[in-house]
């Protein structure tokens, strides 16, 4: 597998505020990499550094294993922040203009993209008079001009209606499966992200705190009982001897996750109490990416 993106100690500081701190990440060809984090976590800043809009304070970005990032960026398509479009031009004129600028103005390219984003019928509309959803679609369309090998999409589902979200999701999956397009996306719609992503990077306060594959996340976020106990060593022993399972994980000094007996929580509590372990809290957890994310942000999941 070849690296599409590799960053080494990527850092961005704004007047003393560290927006991105020492990020080392790699995205391989064919990945759909989801960057997840709270507002202000540094996702957009990281994407801006990858796309050359912001200059790193320190560290380096290697794109397509090419140290000359500016050259490699010809193979990228970007949607960063809000849709940046020329509001006085029509949908078609915007595409025509950017197709010329990107050197991909061959016959049929604009029509191909219009069809991909489902805007053939609205090609003549002036951007200033279209909805946010249409602007978002067009911004994605501009990113798709010239069939880039790598797409950076910051909040691509913003402003789209449910059908639009579904269409864009299918489009991303199609591009990834048919053309092996590598995609880096960020979104706060975690359920949607979970439907497309093959790898995840979680950011908090400018740091990439956790990177996982889709399979690893499925494993980590699978349904379990999370117990806050007085003694995790003793609780682990009870799991093995009394409950007869090794399917557990000690998270920290007071938290243990048990992947069996999820539907028989009373049996677990009884075993713990009888074994002299106080159960301070027990929750059924790990059912979705959202819950995993919440746990990660509050620090109750092992990184």
């Amino acid at each position: 597998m070849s690296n599409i993106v590799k960053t080494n100690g990527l850092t961005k500081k704004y007047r003393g505020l560290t927006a991105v701190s020492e990020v080392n990440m790699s995205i391989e060809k064919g990945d759909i990499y989801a960057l997840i984090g709270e507002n202000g976590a540094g996702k957009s800043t990281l994407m801006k550094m990858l796309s050359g809009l912001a200059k790193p304070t320190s560290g380096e970005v290697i794109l397509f294993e090419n140290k000359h990032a500016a050259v490699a960026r010809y193979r990228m398509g970007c949607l960063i922040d809000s849709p940046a479009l020329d509001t006085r031009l029509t949908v078609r004129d915007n595409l025509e203009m950017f197709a010329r600028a990107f050197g991909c103005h061959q016959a049929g390219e604009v029509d191909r993209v219009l069809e991909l984003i489902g805007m053939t019928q609205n090609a003549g509309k002036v951007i200033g008079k279209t909805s946010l959803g249409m602007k978002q679609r067009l911004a994605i369309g501009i990113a798709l001009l010239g069939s880039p090998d790598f797409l950076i999409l910051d909040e691509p589902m913003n402003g789209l209606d449910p059908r639009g979200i579904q269409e864009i999701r299918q489009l991303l999956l199609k591009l990834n499966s048919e053309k092996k397009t590598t995609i880096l996306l960020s979104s706060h719609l975690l359920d949607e992200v979970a439907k497309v992503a093959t790898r995840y990077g979680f950011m908090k306060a400018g740091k990439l705190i956790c990177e996982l594959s889709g399979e690893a996340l499925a494993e980590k976020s699978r349904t379990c009982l999370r117990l806050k106990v007085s003694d995790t060593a003793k609780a682990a022993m009870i799991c093995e001897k009394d409950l007869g399972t090794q399917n557990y994980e000690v998270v920290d000094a007071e938290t243990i996750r048990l992947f069996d007996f999820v539907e028989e929580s009373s049996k677990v509590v009884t075993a713990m109490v009888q074994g002299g372990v106080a159960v301070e809290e027990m929750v059924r957890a790990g059912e979705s990416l959202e819950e995993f994310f919440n746990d990660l942000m509050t620090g109750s999941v092992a990184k």
Partner: protein
Amino acid sequence: MLNVTKASVYKMFHDKAFWICMAGTVAWAIVVIMAQVMTSGARGLTDVSQLANRWYGFVGLHCVEVPLIISAVILFTGEYRDKSWKLFIAKGISRASYYFAKLICMLLLTVIITFLSLMTVAISNFVVLHATFDMAYVWNVLQYILGQTLAHCSIAMMILMVISITKRGEIASILSLGMMIFGYVMLHGVESAMGLGEAVTDAWAFSMTAFVEFAGPTQWGRLLVAILGYLVVCSLVVITWISRRDIE
């Protein structure tokens, strides 16, 4: 850079604002000529050739810069306002290439506006004054228009520099108009008071149009040197400015 230039030219001609600005430029030149026609009697100006030359001088001096400032601000601040210029940069196009593409577009706009304004005068001369039409006269007029265009190219570079640095239409308009007034009124006033003649204003882009005369090629050397100087200075300032900054 060629691709961005093609895109910028495409955008300019597909923007309704461009055609409105061009129509406004012609209308402005017509209004100015009409005002001249209506007041010429009161000022005792009756000689046709004298009137014709006066109209060229007046429009070339005063009626190209304002439409140029307005059109440039409307057409070139949009990409900063809509932040669409970041799409060029994110595609690996260097900021210097982006600037030079806009500069070429700006110079094209300058040529169009100068020709439109002065051709409006030329047509008005034939229609209103029934001026004599001979090849010597046409050649004279064309040389004058070319001289004015060269002078306005330096102005265009300064306007684009202001737009690229401020990135905001209203501020760029005020600053550009301020630079124009500064050149015509303050700078000239100060140098006159100091007994410097027109040595300083001759080098100030917004005042250069004043020394373009029907004399023809004699002033072109000065204008070309000025264009080169403004090209170097404005480009260095803008490229240094935009290269150091992150794009929000």
